[in-house]
């Protein structure tokens, strides 16, 4: 999976291994790439940020006495003369899951040192992410045209706009940053930086396919957050 080898350290499986690992000297998670451990720590802190957003949304929506806008209609689309509820959001969800799947396969092919497949799959993931951001921009502009603002909207409780723009905006920012990194990593993969163990731009760390897994963790996290936003904001 990765690893600076640490002399004399043997990984022990199971719960006794967990106790040994957690209480070990010098470093925890011995043998785990530091970048991967740090990405997990970052994702954990990001989880707290998104949780705070969703909890404040719950608190705001729960405590208002004005009717909350009905998401099924607010986010519905009128296509071919029929009103389809949540159509755009459903498509966005499927696009994001598709890109999550291609990313998982990219990680797999990365570890098999299959440069071509890995590169193309990262590129496919990036394009999926770009499509998602594009559709989100469309959704934002549609709602802004309909008069949704952070302080008012024509559908119901005025808090709706501020929660909507804050939560989806923060998620969209994550997706956009992910897309930028996906393009950079697709380039690095095709250019063979991971096969040649070439150093990165701001680090003395030698290139390794574990970086694809670290990028994958971030991308799956973005998908994971969308699962919760989809459930609580759009479906609830």
């Amino acid at each position, binding site marked *: 999976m990765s690893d600076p080898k640490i002399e004399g350290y043997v990984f022990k499986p199971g719960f006794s*291994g967990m106790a040994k*690992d957690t209480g070990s000297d010098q470093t925890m998670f011995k043998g785990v790439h530091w970048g991967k451990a740090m990405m997990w720590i970052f994702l954990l802190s990001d989880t707290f940020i998104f949780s705070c957003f969703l909890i404040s949304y719950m608190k705001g929506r729960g405590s208002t006495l004005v009717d909350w806008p009905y998401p099924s209609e607010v986010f519905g689309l009128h296509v071919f003369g029929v009103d389809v509820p949540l159509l755009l959001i459903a498509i966005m969800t499927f696009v994001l899951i598709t890109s*999550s*799947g291609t990313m998982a396969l990219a990680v*797999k092919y990365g570890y098999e040192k299959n440069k071509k497949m890995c590169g193309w799959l990262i590129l496919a993931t990036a394009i999926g992410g770009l499509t998602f951001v594009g559709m989100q921009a469309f959704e934002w502009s549609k709602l802004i045209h309909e008069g949704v603002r952070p302080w008012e909207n024509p559908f119901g409780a005025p808090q709706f706009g501020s929660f909507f723009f804050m939560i989806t905006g923060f998620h969209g920012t994550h997706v956009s940053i992910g897309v930028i990194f996906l393009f950079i990593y697709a380039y690095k993969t095709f250019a063979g930086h991971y096969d040649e163990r070439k150093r990165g731009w701001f680090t003395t760390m030698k290139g390794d396919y574990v970086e694809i897994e670290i990028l994958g963790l971030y991308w799956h996290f973005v998908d*994971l957050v969308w699962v919760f936003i*989809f459930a609580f904001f759009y479906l609830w």
Partner: protein
Amino acid sequence: MDETKKKEQATTHKIGIYLWIWGLLFVLSFFSYMVDWYNFQGMLRWSLILIFMFLKAGLIMAFFMHLFWERYALVNVLLWPMTAIACFIFLMVAEFEYTVFTRIFYFVTGG
């Protein structure tokens, strides 16, 4: 499956497992969309939304993010802090119920 075996496999999982999880995620997303499509209401709606949400989140974390194959020390460090979030949710539920109560109370009595 014992964990040493899991660790060895960790670098090369069969493609089948990813495709299965991928397919399941599509099916679960489709189901959660259907909850809205058929316009279920009340407890049925909320429980279905939550079930599909947790199943999807679990699958993504366990297989796409490899937590199922990861050492327990890492899983432990990641999952325990979630209890803090759960506590926060319960606190804020109590908080918004109190806010609603005071709002209704003062709207009725006129302050």
